[in-house]
């Protein structure tokens, strides 16, 4: 079961990004910052998953399916982009900015150590 956890995490984030880009309500990105962070998390974790997930057990079709879902999420994100505000609540600009920065920094480390 433990061996499946990396795949479950990657599926969760890639599907979550597609949802945030396409969903009209539940799970939808509330602003552009959220959309960018969701997209980077999905792409980054898929890239890390390339090295962490046992693709010999799950089949490479799972990889291509996830790439397809990521691409669909990117399409949805581009289409939704003009309709979203940069930040839903500008009063939280600092907190949201720091949160996004820390998330992306952690993601960079997680991806970096698997691809170095």
């Amino acid at each position, binding site marked *: 079961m433990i061996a499946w956890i990396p795949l479950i995490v990657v599926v969760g984030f890639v599907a979550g990004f597609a949802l945030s880009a396409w969903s009209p309500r539940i799970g939808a990105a509330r602003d552009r910052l959220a959309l960018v962070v969701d997209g980077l998390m999905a792409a980054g974790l898929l890239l890390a998953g390339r090295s962490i997930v046992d693709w010999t057990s799950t089949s490479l079709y799972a*990889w*291509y399916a996830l790439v397809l879902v990521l691409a669909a999420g990117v399409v949805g994100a581009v289409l939704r982009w003009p309709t979203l505000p940069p930040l839903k609540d500008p009063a939280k600009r600092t907190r949201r900015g720091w949160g996004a920065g820390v998330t992306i920094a952690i993601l960079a480390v997680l991806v970096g150590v*698997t691809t170095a």
Partner: protein
Amino acid sequence: MKRPTRIRLIAAGAAVVVLAGGVLAAPRPPALSTTATGDPTLAASLTAGAAREPGARDTLAGAVIDPDGVTFAGLGADENTEFEIGSITKTFTALLLAQAVERGEVSLDDPAGDYLDLADSAAAEVTLGELSSHRSGLPRIATSPSALATSVWNSYRGSDPYPYDLDALTNHARAAALTDRGTVAYSNLGVALLGQALAAAADTDYADLLHERIFDPLGMTATSLPATPDALAADARTGYTLAGRPADAWTMNAYAPAGGIRSTIADMARYAQALLDADPALGVDPARMLDPQGDPDDGPLIGLAWFTQAPEDGTATWHNGGTGGFTSMIALDREANRAVIVLGNTGASVDAVAMTILEETA
């Protein structure tokens, strides 16, 4: 160009970039080598057995030891190719324990605290015999938050999760609580302590003790224990994780008695042959390690490190091993005087490969 059209074009272009990147970056785990060495029948058994268990494969080496001699085979490897044997190292630590008892240096009932600075911790009271048979009650690994974090992070990085020196090891033991002492619960921490206690009793270090009492007498000239990265040869072989990512070598420092040996299938065959033949070079009757001890109701049948299959499952006496990039299995059929060893350089298990060969060649 109208704005909606431009956005749709951008979306389509971005999708194409993602799809192209996904195809170019598709995972390419190593595949099992088709270059066979040694006995063709055994090589075919290795190939067939490897397909039964999931995970990336690269190279395998195997040996069958029976009264007629030793048969080797390899896929992308031969009898002199080096592998990390992981937890099979515990059987060497058990042999050192049995030898030390035979020499009168220690007793199975001696508390670990007699040999290591464990202060008045619970770990100080556990006996050397309990450490070897996994009945000490110590946890599998150190459970302090920093040790757990190091273990998880190093495993994620594909590097050695046991970088600790002797002081750190004894600190881990002092901080550990005992759970169900007397019941079998596999403990790397326990066997690491045991190996260090035996080294202290012999007034040497663990690697030297192995060489002096096992590797040299048995002629295992290609076997070593580089306990730190500095002691590892610059061109030391490394393997791949279960997923096929390159993994760092595990040297394990003070935890090396639980899994730090590097060896070849030829040397491991020599070891198995000595166990089957009760070779005097072992310095002790191997039955002392191999025979199950303790109450069979208290968990798996286990001697000093060696597991014995439950009667309904078979008759093998065995131990397996796994590091970040290697797996191993040694299984003895003591009645038939036969043994099988399989070593692999990925995280994919070779347990079933070895057990199947042992049963097929019976």
